[in-house]
């Protein structure tokens, strides 16, 4: 499945390692939440980028102590109708200030790209090749947004507030 990162189709530098397989000495790895939490101190001290696959039914607040040492958090969409990871993403970015890669995995389709980007995902493990190529088109469909999120767009209310104040002076 193609990985779209910061808007570009790109190779995945992370290697997913199963729980019962020894971690390589070097290189970026992606491990399970259970493995991370079993021995977090040792794992985050490893001298290569570390990523974790975080299940969508587990509180992301548990990750707080390790956030500044995680290079990647992969959140899961088992079906694209299951939107729990949307909330996890917003809390990680906007409440806990996570700045590493935030990747959407699972059933990731173009009709959700805009939502995913608005919620703070910067990497999408896209299910369909054609969708990956349509990233630009899909994410530029909307020029205005009603809700403020951490994506930097000003919301409709914020824009109008500005106009209102300008016209009042």
């Amino acid at each position: 499945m193609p990985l779209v990162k910061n808007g570009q189709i790109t190779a995945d530098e992370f290697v997913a390692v199963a729980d019962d397989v020894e971690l390589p000495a070097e290189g970026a790895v992606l491990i399970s939440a259970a493995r991370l939490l079993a021995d977090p101190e040792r794992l985050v001290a490893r001298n290569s980028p570390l990523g974790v696959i975080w299940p969508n039914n587990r509180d992301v607040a548990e990750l707080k102590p390790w956030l500044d040492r995680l290079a990647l958090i992969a959140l899961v969409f088992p079906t694209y109708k299951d939107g729990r990871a949307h909330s996890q993403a917003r809390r990680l970015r906007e409440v806990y200030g996570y700045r590493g890669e935030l990747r959407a995995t699972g059933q990731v389709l173009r009709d959700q790209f805009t939502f995913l980007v608005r919620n703070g995902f910067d990497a999408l493990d896209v299910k369909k090749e054609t969708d990956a190529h349509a990233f630009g088109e899909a994410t530029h469909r909307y020029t205005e947004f009603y809700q403020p999120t951490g994506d930097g767009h000003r919301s409709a209310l914020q824009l109008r507030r500005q106009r209102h104040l300008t016209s009042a002076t």
Partner: protein
Amino acid sequence: MYAYDDIDRAIVHERVEEFRDQVSRRLSGELTEDEFKPLRLMNGVYLQLHAYMFRVAIPYGTLSSAQLRKLAHVARTYDRGYGHFTTRQNIQFNWIALKDLPDALADLAEVGIHAMQTSGNCTRNVTADQWAGVAPGEVEDPRVWAEILRQHTALHPEFSFLPRKFKFAITASDHDRAAIKIHDIGLKLVRNDAGETGFEVLVGGGLGRSPFIGRTIKSFVAGRDILSYIEAVLRVYNQYGRRDNIYKARIKILVHELGIEKFAAEVEQAWAEIADGPLTLDDEMIEDIRSRFIYPAYEKLPAEPDELRAAAGDARFEAWRNNSVAPHRHDGYAIVTLSLKPAGGPPGDATAEQMDAVADLADKYSFGEIRVGHEQNLVLPHVARRDLPALWAALDKLGLATPNVGLVSDIIACPGLDYCSLANARSIPIAQELSRRFASPETAALIGRLHINISGCINACGHHHVGHIGILGVEKNGEEFYQITIGGRADEGAELGELIGPAVPYGEVADVIEDIVEAYLSLRQRPDELFVDAVKRLGVEPFKERVYATR
């Protein structure tokens, strides 16, 4: 009326183009039906028994005459010349082709109407008191807040894939016409001791297979905090709402399983993370929305004009006036309800011609504004009292002056088995039969206010649980049976009705309802004791006895 600005218009048009692209990918096979389904639902498109059904949002039930004419245009151009107004302040078109939907949406977008999130597991159309802004005694016009909520919940990136659908209703009156206690979130606009405007927030109401009356989760949330507080409720629900079983996925089950105190504590914790953040409203933001609600330039008019005195001798006019005309916050004006419940008609249906004619009457008599209520009737909210006789005469010609608003034949009914793929039994023919039996204005006036609600299946689109008399269609061995409940109500004293006994076959429903009504007439203490109050006092037993003694 709320006037869209360039931002609102851009979003609606961009949405239409997105849907056009999705439909074309579906038609080419690039999208599977499974992938397309949640997308079409979020644009109001269902696949029903016979065809696609298209559900259009009427936020907080407010329409301009231009918007109503455009709905008539859609009915005429893409459908079979009529539409059906629903309990969700929506209009549904039943016979529309998938290929025509993007064009229909584009036509509606020209007048600022959309079908965003009228279905699907997302935040749905925000409903409100259909008398908002004109009812006497309101804290303030709740539609300003309903519009703030509409905007915030439209295309919300975090809450478009919730465990289940999510419905808001809002009122600013002590008398609740918005049924806020049977919504996922009910909001009542209040003012605290310091004079600040805020909300009593109720959560976890809902009907369907497990009906619950909503509970107050917080007695006062300041207006500036309402979006962050709502966001916290939805975030908790998104995370913890059940996804293993769709019948247990609504927020009412989560609230019930956790208990309101524990649920409230979870919300407080989620709120603490985001309160005072970017969602906090300030006066300029609220004022900007308020400034785009345009109110009529009311004149100073007499409360009892000569025209009204002159018409008082006409018994038909007086009968209509008694139940269709309500007091207005401005002297000299009235709120007029247009019954979409003629004897023998399907409740809530209006033809394209009727819609056009109502739009014309709204221009002439109601400053171009129309409302849609959850009782499936239309409302002209700003009628000068001197114009009432002329308006009545015009409505009478259109078949829209049936004098039964709030009375026994003002029946709420879902489309039932005639249209709906979920239904187990018909609703419309039951409503038609009952409306014929109770067609006499004299009998109806004798009975007084009595709400009958009919649903063709457990999903309860006809709100049968909260009907004074509720009728629920069920299927037994391939035949249609109906369970009857009594004592339900959807207002500020909301309660769920109680079952009176075994389900009865299709052919006996109307007789049973007549028996119940006759029992009430013989049992009531005074002529002004409402049916629902008599049931409260007496319990179901005497009614049950009357119905089943001879069956």
